[in-house]
């Protein structure tokens, strides 16, 4: 920014710095001078339609809207002069004449921008004695409730659709006083970030449907937390009443989720209170299940695991843990299993191709911040249904595309993107690998690179099409270009080939390689050592144990499962339940008890979900985020780290004397101190896979983990219908 852009304005007699091109309200906001507003929102375009921010500007014949008045050097502004206040009060009176006086039964009451400003700018008694407008409510689907009579037509929700979501689901119909916000044709609002219009709506017109009438804003306590369903870790606030989570709202963090939250992160918490929540530890004795106390359950687990180790050898114990468990849980889980002598530990439960896992990044991830992702000029997205996998990352990619970046997709299908896509590289008649090979060959030809022996074999059969050449040209021309591997790529049976080709393509075109990762904490899991070939901190393990695919294909005699429903969360899970039923001792640390678990488990231990435990996540941008539990654990559930700590003690494993999650965090940090979370992604050549159904690698947005699968409102949405029935909560209509 050059000094030419700097100028000075005078607001209420105080000189303020401002930047050329800024609107007045941005300069006053930055200086902490409040101007009332409804339609203005820093993330949306300027509408200037509410007229609440009218201020007096010297020499202007009329009051001017601060949101749409550019700053001028030396301009004199009065935000609270008699003229400004009179204009603001006039607007307030107009807004209120047709607004229902139903604050006592409105969920927005107590946190309503209209209510708040009416305190300062409204009249005590209305002069309006005519009939008030009444507007028919709309059915926008299971997530957003409407009371359209309350609408003040600020159009923030409309602009959100146009500018942020990229699909205009809401619009205005009618004119004048009869203007209405709606979908025109009756339909639900389906975008994966649609819940944000609840926060954007300054009044109670659009509200949180699952939360409707269940609490008042001032009765709840607010707790900062981190979202647990994708690899960005959106920051959020949980609003809790008597220990029960009532709703989730975004916590602004420009580096991660800006001011947004995906619907999955906002509404998933409903799953915490699903009917099949495990209320107490349960134990199976002689084939009969019964509830028991923690002491009995934990002793049984310790005895069971020690028994397997003694009778069959510790290599007959394996552990699988959810990639969305906290780093602390991963750390203690790995320590427990290694302490028992087992090396069969994994969190990569949806991955099937482990060739070259030694070259995996110490902490897989994007290798860049989300802001960097947004700043890319060319992006090749490989194997990702971006919007469903990581909605916030998809939003950043959308922003890049809207700003002019060329975004190419290599996917098993042409998933819908609400931004200009430079090219879908067709895989309907080929595979991701064939398309990538074509791209690499085109890149090598263009840059006159010679492939090494490994690559030469793959490239020999590759066909180069003009669209490959076009995409490669864009990647080379762009100053900032990235090859982004998605979750479909990571689950692909030819993953090692995919990433080798991606690395070769990136090297030849001068692009970076980044990966989206499974769950909320794949990076943290890798650092904490829930891997068969690495210990905590990323150093190679002395002995490489069984990986997730091997464990799933042939479970060992003793099994420890944490935070997963293996038949739904693991790759190649056909027949897994029967195989698990053949194990000798299987302990499942789980928030939920399913009929399936009762067929194979020996002990069920109720564990707290992300809402009920303290811990930390390492997101795909390399940011470590700590959080504490915000809800009272359901039933006898305990935080995972506490369960593992006691198990460690009972199994006489060293290093389990922690009294708080923070101590575990510190211990983990101490081990990882010297580990660089590298993002190198080379890989080695694995046998080719052919004839595989790539489309089957896609996990629907609301099927990613046990909590989301039980979030009733999400399951009622358009996307929820694609979830297998088994995952639907029993009480969902």
């Amino acid at each position, binding site marked *: 920014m050059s000094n030419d852009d700097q100028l000075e304005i005078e607001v209420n007699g105080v000189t303020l710095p401002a930047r050329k091109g800024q609107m007045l309200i941005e300069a006053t906001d930055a200086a902490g001078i409040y101007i009332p507003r409804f339609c203005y929102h820093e993330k949306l375009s300027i509408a200037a339609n*509410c*007229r609440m921010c009218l201020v007096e500007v010297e020499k202007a014949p*009329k009051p001017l809207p601060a949101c749409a008045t550019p700053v001028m050097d030396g301009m004199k502004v009065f935000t609270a002069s008699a003229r400004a206040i009179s204009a603001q009060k006039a607007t307030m009176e*107009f807004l209120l004449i047709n607004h229902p006086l139903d604050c006592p039964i409105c969920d927005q009451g107590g946190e309503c921008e209209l209510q708040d400003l009416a305190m300062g700018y409204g009249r005590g008694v209305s002069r309006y004695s*005519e009939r008030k407008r009444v507007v028919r409510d709309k059915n926008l689907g299971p997530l957003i409730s409407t009371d359209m009579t309350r609408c003040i037509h600020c159009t923030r929700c409309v602009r959100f659709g146009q500018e942020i979501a990229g699909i205009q689901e809401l619009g205005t119909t009618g*004119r004048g*006083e009869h203007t209405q916000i709606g979908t025109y044709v009756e339909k639900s609002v389906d975008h994966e970030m649609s819940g944000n219009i609840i926060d954007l709506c300054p009044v109670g017109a659009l509200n949180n449907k699952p939360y409707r009438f269940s609490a008042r804003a001032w009765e709840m306590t607010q707790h900062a937390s981190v979202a647990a369903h994708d690899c960005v870790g959106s920051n959020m606030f949980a609003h809790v009443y008597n220990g029960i989570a009532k709703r989730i709202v975004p916590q602004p963090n420009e580096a991660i989720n800006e001011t947004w939250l995906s619907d999955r992160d906002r509404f998933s918490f409903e799953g915490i209170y699903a009917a099949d929540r495990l209320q107490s530890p349960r134990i199976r004795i002689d084939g009969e299940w019964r509830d028991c106390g923690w002491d009995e359950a934990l002793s049984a687990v310790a005895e069971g695991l020690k028994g397997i180790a003694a009778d069959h050898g510790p290599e007959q114990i394996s552990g699988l843990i959810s990639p969305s468990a906290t780093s602390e849980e991963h750390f203690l889980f790995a320590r427990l299993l290694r302490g028992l002598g087992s090396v069969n530990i994994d969190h990569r439960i949806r991955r099937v191709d482990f060739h070259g896992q030694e070259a995996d990044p110490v902490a897989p991830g994007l290798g860049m911040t989300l802001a960097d992702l947004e700043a890319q000029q060319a992006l090749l997205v490989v194997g990702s249904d971006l919007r469903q996998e990581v909605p916030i990352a998809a939003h950043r990619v959308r922003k890049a595309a809207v700003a002019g970046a060329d975004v190419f997709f290599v996917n098993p299908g042409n998933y819908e993107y609400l931004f200009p896509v430079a090219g879908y590289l067709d895989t309907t008649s080929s595979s991701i690998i064939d398309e990538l090979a074509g791209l690499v060959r085109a890149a090598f030809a263009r840059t006159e690179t010679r492939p090494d022996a490994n690559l030469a074999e793959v490239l020999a059969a590759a066909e180069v099409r003009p669209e490959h050449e076009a995409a490669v040209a864009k990647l080379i021309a762009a100053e900032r270009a990235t090859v982004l591997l998605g979750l479909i790529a990571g689950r692909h049976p030819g993953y090692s080939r995919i990433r080798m080709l991606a690395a070769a393509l990136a090297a030849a075109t001068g692009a970076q390689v980044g990966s989206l990762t499974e769950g909320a904490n794949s990076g943290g899991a890798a650092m904490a050592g829930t891997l068969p070939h690495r210990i905590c901190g990323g150093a190679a393990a002395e002995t490489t144990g069984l990986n997730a695919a091997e464990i799933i294909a042939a479970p060992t005699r003793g099994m420890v499962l944490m935070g997963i429903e293996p038949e739904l969360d693991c790759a190649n899970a056909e027949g897994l339940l029967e195989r698990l039923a053949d194990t000798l001792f299987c302990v499942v640390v789980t928030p939920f008890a399913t009929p399936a678990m009762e067929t194979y488990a020996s002990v069920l231990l109720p564990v707290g979900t992300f809402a009920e435990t303290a811990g930390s996540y390492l997101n795909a941008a390399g940011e470590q985020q700590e959080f504490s539990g915000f809800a009272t654990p359901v039933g006898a559930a305990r935080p995972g780290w506490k369960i593992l700590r006691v198990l460690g003690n009972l199994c006489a494993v060293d290093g389990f004397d922690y009294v708080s999650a923070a101590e575990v965090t510190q211990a983990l940090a101490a081990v990882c101190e010297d580990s660089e979370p590298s993002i190198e992604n080379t890989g080695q050549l694995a046998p080719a896979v052919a004839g595989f159904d790539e489309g089957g690698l896609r996990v629907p947005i609301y099927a990613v983990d046990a909590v989301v699968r039980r979030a009733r409102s999400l399951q009622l949405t358009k996307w929820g219908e694609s979830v297998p029935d088994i995952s639907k909560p029993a009480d969902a209509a």
Partner: protein
Amino acid sequence: MGSEGSGGPVVFSVSGHVNRPGNFEVGLGIPFRDLLELAGGVRDGRKLKAVIPGGSSVRVLPAELILEANMDHKSLQEAGSSLGSAAVIVMDETTDMVRVLERISRFYYSESCGQCTPCREGTGWMNRVIGRILAGRGKPADMDMLVDVANKIEGHTICALGDASAWPVQSFVHHYRHEFEHYIEHGCSIVSQQSAAA
């Protein structure tokens, strides 16, 4: 052609209570009396009551003011109105000004696009209050409130439709307040009583 500050010709579109309504292309600055003569004078030899000289959005002028004015920017401004679109609406002595204002305000109510608050909400408010007065259900406090609402729309909207909806209300009440008050007090028009008396 034209007058100082208002050069050139203009097409006046004269409508209302005149004998020969029509479009008249003349030089700007023509005295209103001459324009009225071109349009054949007030119909049936009645007395002129008021004129809206520039389309329904500009301020109304009573006969005594418009009869002294020339049809150009400066002169009409001095008289308290403006040239607007040069659509001249002539009203004779039988005109019920409350009824006229109700009609004009209904026009702006239904033309408001609804984008910005003061016009979206205010035009309907004004129209309802005037309609209520016309129906004989007005209250004394309505008069000041009506002007206040118009003042709060004027100058606060994105486009000029807000101003256009406010000016007729302000000027009708300013010049013909007694007609509104008669409605409020007696529930009927002062005009019909006058004609009944005549």
